[in-house]
């Protein structure tokens, strides 16, 4: 496979690949911590999610600088950078959502559904890692990206119910309602960005054939 050859060349390339893998694995850890934090109402653990975003940021910087120090052929660099940036967008959104969680009080009516979305976010994130590994092996990504779309669709379905439910929740003031609304949209939008990232992997994969 051409892609396998391109991606497994020199030391810098291997370093970049290893860091991208580390970046996605860290995202899986962050999503997992987020899910446990919301399930057990563990605010300390939620603060850890914010710390993990900072760690993700430093890995992203390392990857980008390695790429521009000469890893990979120049025509490949923008696509790889874009993919890394998209994964980083997921970290940012997860951090914002964690912050909203710390500010808001999640009503019982939507707690169960929020945990379910958080669980699906862990699943979709792991699937992104699996898709990345499959790309490195030069495999067809069709089944992997379909699985990601299935996760995304399920979260979308829950989102509709959540919005409906949220309309019935009394709020004391504007800010309380806004923070809760931002929390819900952040939680349900993580999968959208992961889907974008998987589309990018598919694009890179196809363009290398």
């Amino acid at each position, binding site marked *: 496979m051409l892609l396998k050859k391109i991606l497994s060349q020199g030391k810098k390339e291997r370093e970049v690949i290893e860091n991208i893998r580390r970046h996605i694995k860290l995202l899986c850890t962050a999503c997992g911590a987020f899910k446990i934090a919301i399930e057990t109402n563990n605010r300390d653990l939620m603060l850890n999610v914010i710390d993990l975003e900072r760690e993700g940021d430093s890995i992203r910087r390392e990857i980008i600088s390695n790429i521009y120090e000469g890893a990979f052929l120049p025509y490949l660099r923008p696509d790889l950078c874009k993919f890394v940036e998209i994964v980083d967008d997921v970290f940012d959104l997860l951090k914002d959502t964690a912050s909203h969680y710390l500010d808001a009080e999640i009503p019982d009516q939507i707690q169960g559904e929020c945990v379910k979305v958080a669980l699906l976010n862990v699943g979709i994130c792991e699937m992104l890692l*699996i898709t990345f590994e499959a790309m490195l092996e030069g495999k067809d990504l069709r089944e992997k990206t379909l*699985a990601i779309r299935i996760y995304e669709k399920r979260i979308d379905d829950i989102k509709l119910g959540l919005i409906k439910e949220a309309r019935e929740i009394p709020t004391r003031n504007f800010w309380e309602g806004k923070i809760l609304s931002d929390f819900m949209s952040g939680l349900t939008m993580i999968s959208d960005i992961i889907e974008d990232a998987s589309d990018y992997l598919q694009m890179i994969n196809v363009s290398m054939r």
Partner: protein
Amino acid sequence: MKLEEFMTTKIEFIDADRSVYDAIEKMVDRRIRSLVVRFPGKETEHGVITARDIVFRALAKKINPKSIKISEIASKPLVCVDSSMTLDDVTRIMEEHNVARIIVCEQEKIIGVISLLDLMAATLIIRARGDYVT
């Protein structure tokens, strides 16, 4: 992969003594194809009414849905599976009973519903995961 990951936890209930028209209204409003029918007693003794029941047992027979009670056409008892069951077991039970959705229970309490589409999605995800373990 656990059933809980793929079941729908939002379950809509309706009382057995309400009219079929009420059930139609609720199904159209919520865009769903089935409702759990509340009969007196434990949750596992409830029934289910689906769009299929309504069409074949009432509308196709020109019965006025406002004049017939849900209890007259609902299927009872519920086909329930335990939340610890595997997807393969659930698929087999659905095939045996020829149903498109099945209720998931935990200690005689309804906790979700799993449909054929949910099973299909879960199977595709398992295929995509392969033997990858994070």
